[in-house]
């Protein structure tokens, strides 16, 4: 079917500029296929149902707008003892990075990968699977054009987390990263991500979690005021496996995080959570989550909290799809926003689509101002108003942060949040 005219024009313009990086034949084939996919679907447009609340034009445009480079606080996750990989403007920096080896873990750089059999089966394939029932053309474009990224394979219980640090130097960097992660049976690994990477960043992370394996993901999306990013996580998880992902977002002009999880084995657990604090009318933050239950006895949770002020906009589009036969599913979804002033907006579409009868699925969504009574109580105890507001804001965000299993990592993020709130007090 022909695409609408505006969509076709924007797609043609962008794809005309698309450069497929050199690489081994298998990668080349996957990229060409992905480019076809993107061309067929057309890049997103504001009139698309899944972009109803977020204008994708800045992500689709041929050129990205420059953004001032902020001195990002590199100390985050420093205490985690992680194996650290550094990217500058979306390019791997081997000098700044640790050696690509660790106990129970194999790491290689996408740009240098030759014949890595496990990765060639996965690259682009989870992204492809994630295109139905909802198309995600920006992810296909990423598969086609990604210039760098890492391939991580956990073969046992990794003793250190892997931390990806995204640094920036150029004001106009436009980066496309693609990571592939395979957690083998019974293995486990924790992935940390921090920093804003580029003025415009696109990342796709494909995660395959085998039976009995565990994948933990904690990320902080950079504080640069002017950055724009869209990230996609595609996960396929097996029986008795665990997938947990948490994202903290501060600032940025535009953030769109898509998370697509397919639960294919029985007794699997998938949790996705996020906390975001946004200040200013240019702040637009969108969490779009799609969890498919296709096995027995699965447990999924989506916990998203947004604090918004000065015209900031928060979006949540969450979906739980329970396929026929996925009995005993326990699906839970909560999205809440705290609007600190009259100009901010919260737009949500929490969806359930259920084809199995023996399930317990629920969702809740609330939006409102800070509780006058709680504020009054704290003030009557001598806490100044701005401090009281921050205290209540942190308390509001706590439920999302509790989704992080590792207390030390959660504390790191809590501290960062408190710092942000202090700086933005009043």
């Amino acid at each position, binding site marked *: 079917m022909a695409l609408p005219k505006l969509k076709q024009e924007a797609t043609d313009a962008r794809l005309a500029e698309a450069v497929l990086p050199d690489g081994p034949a298998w990668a080349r084939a996957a990229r060409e296929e992905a480019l076809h996919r993107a061309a067929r679907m057309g890049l997103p447009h504001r009139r698309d149902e899944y972009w109803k609340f977020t204008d994708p034009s800045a992500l689709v445009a041929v050129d990205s707008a420059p953004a001032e480079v902020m001195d990002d606080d590199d100390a985050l996750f420093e205490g985690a003892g992680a194996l650290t990989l550094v990217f500058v403007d979306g390019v791997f920096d081997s000098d700044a990075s640790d050696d690509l080896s660790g106990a129970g873990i194999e790491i290689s750089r996408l740009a240098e990968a030759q014949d890595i059999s496990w990765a060639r089966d996965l690259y682009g394939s989870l992204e492809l699977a994630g295109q139905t029932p909802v198309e995600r053309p920006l992810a296909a474009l990423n598969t086609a054009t990604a210039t760098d990224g890492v391939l991580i394979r956990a073969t046992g219980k990794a003793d250190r987390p892997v931390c990806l640090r995204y640094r920036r130097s150029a004001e106009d960097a436009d980066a496309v990263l693609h990571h592939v992660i395979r957690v083998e049976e019974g293995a486990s690994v924790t992935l940390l991500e921090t920093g804003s990477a580029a003025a415009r960043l696109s990342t796709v992370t494909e995660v395959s979690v085998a039976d009995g394996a565990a994948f933990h993901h904690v990320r902080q999306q950079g504080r640069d005021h002017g950055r724009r990013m869209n990230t996609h996580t595609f996960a396929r998880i097996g029986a008795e496996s665990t997938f947990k992902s948490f994202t903290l977002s501060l600032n940025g002009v535009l953030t769109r995080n898509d998370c697509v999880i397919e639960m294919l084995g029985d007794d699997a657990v998938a949790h996705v959570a996020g906390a975001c604090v946004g200040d200013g009318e240019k702040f637009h933050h969108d969490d779009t989550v799609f969890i498919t239950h296709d096995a027995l006895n699965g447990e999924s949770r989506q916990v998203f909290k947004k604090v918004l002020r000065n015209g900031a906009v928060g979006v949540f589009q969450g979906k739980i799809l329970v396929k026929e036969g996925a009995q005993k599913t326990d699906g839970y979804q909560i999205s809440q926003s705290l609007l600190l002033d009259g100009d901010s907006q919260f737009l949500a579409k*929490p969806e359930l689509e259920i084809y199995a009868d023996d399930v317990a699925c629920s969702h809740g969504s609330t*939006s409102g101002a800070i509780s006058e009574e709680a504020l009054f109580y704290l003030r009557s105890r001598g806490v100044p108003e701005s401090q009281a507001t921050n205290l209540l804001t942190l308390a509001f965000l706590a439920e999302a942060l509790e989704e992080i299993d590792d207390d030390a990592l959660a504390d790191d993020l809590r501290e960062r949040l408190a710092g942000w709130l202090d700086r933005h007090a009043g």
Partner: protein
Amino acid sequence: MSPMDIDVKEGVDRETVDAVKELSGVYKYGWNDDDIEMDYAPKGVNPEIVKLISSKNEEPAWMTDWRLSAFERWETMSVPNWAMLKLAEIDFQDLYYYARPKSMEVKPKSLDEVDPKLLETYKKLGIPLKEQAVLAGVEGAELEPERKVAVDAVFDSVSVGTTFQKELKKAGVIFCSISEAIRDYPDLVKKYLGSVVPPSDNFYATLNSAVFSDGSFVYVPPGVRCPMELSTYFRINAENTGQFERTLIIADKGSYVSYLEGCTAPKRDVAQLHAAVVEIIVEEDAEVKYSTVQNWYPGDEEGKGGIYNFVTKRADCRGDRSKVMWTQVETGSAVTWKYPSCILRGNDSQGEFYSIAIANNHQQADTGTKMVHLGKNTKSRIVSKGISAGKAQNTYRGLVSMHPKAKDSRNYTQCDSLLIGSECGAHTVPYIEVKNNSSRVEHEATTSKVDDDQLFYCRSRGMDEEEAVALVVNGFCKEVLQALPMEFAMEAQALVAISLEGSVG
């Protein structure tokens, strides 16, 4: 403890269980009256048909033009496909857009002149078109001799008659068919028709604007509390005929009216189209209650036949402190596409939506509401109960929108879905848009199956499984059933049980 005691304890009437037994057949209203002679307009829709319908209703030129411009618009529109409905393509040129019983060619002056065959049909439906005090079959109603219900009966494309018109006129209330209103009260119709659902609103509403043949009109003047319930009863009888009715209700300042709507159709193998538009205008301090029991023919167990029900219903709370309440029990139709909405424009205005949607066998329902908060301190409440059984798909789709100027507003939404059987689906698609921070929006939704413990309890007290499920489901729906006027609550409770026939075991 005897089963009798349980009923009392569980708060479910004995009548419910009795009604289930008594009505333990399948679709009760599925007979056809093919012996009633009909006049048809030629099949299909085009400007000539639009003009023909307009002339049959003896409409003034402005109305004909209004229809024609809607038709022009409709030709540029395409069928909406965003709902979770799987349907065969509808051939809009393969339908009759106008069907009138022959006996209605010369409009009867009073109900006494109406063809007895038509009256018989309504009698069989339990809607006698006699000015008697109560609807038949409502037990206990005789204890309330003052309780009256005025009925406008619509048969295929035309209104057969309206009861209690004189008595209502005394109170200043206008209740008549919309075709009469266009002739007799053109100023009111001109002012309000299309002001809530504009002719260009959506594909089905635009088609309706072009070809609506009849419907009901209500005007309640300032300060008047309508002395009785008003109701419209729709019957589709003719084959291959679309029914397009238009309802316009105006509640002027400080008035009150409660309006009931019911509908049935014969069993036919071929799906039939019903595309209605209901517009409600609620002025300052006025209140409107609109209750629907939708029981169109749902098709057979294999999904053959049934009514395609595409309805646009919207209430505009224009005045401050105005109030509207939609209550719907949706048990019929092969396909339901219906989102009764409230535009809360006036400050302190209120909208409520209570819904039970039951889908069994191959039925598909995509229904919900829109609450658009524009005025300050507006309130809305949504309670939706969806029940899926057999191979049915049931979707709640709704919008709650708090505009920047709707300060200090409030919404509470609860949508619960119940699944009976492993081949059906229950879906929830809410849109929430909050654009100011002094408003509070709360949304809760759950999906689960009929509780095994509750079933076991009922069965251990001697109920068979079907009875037990009906009881549990009635309990699940209680909040909504309680919002219905008495006549409807009875019918609805029985319907809940009947609609689930054959869904167990």
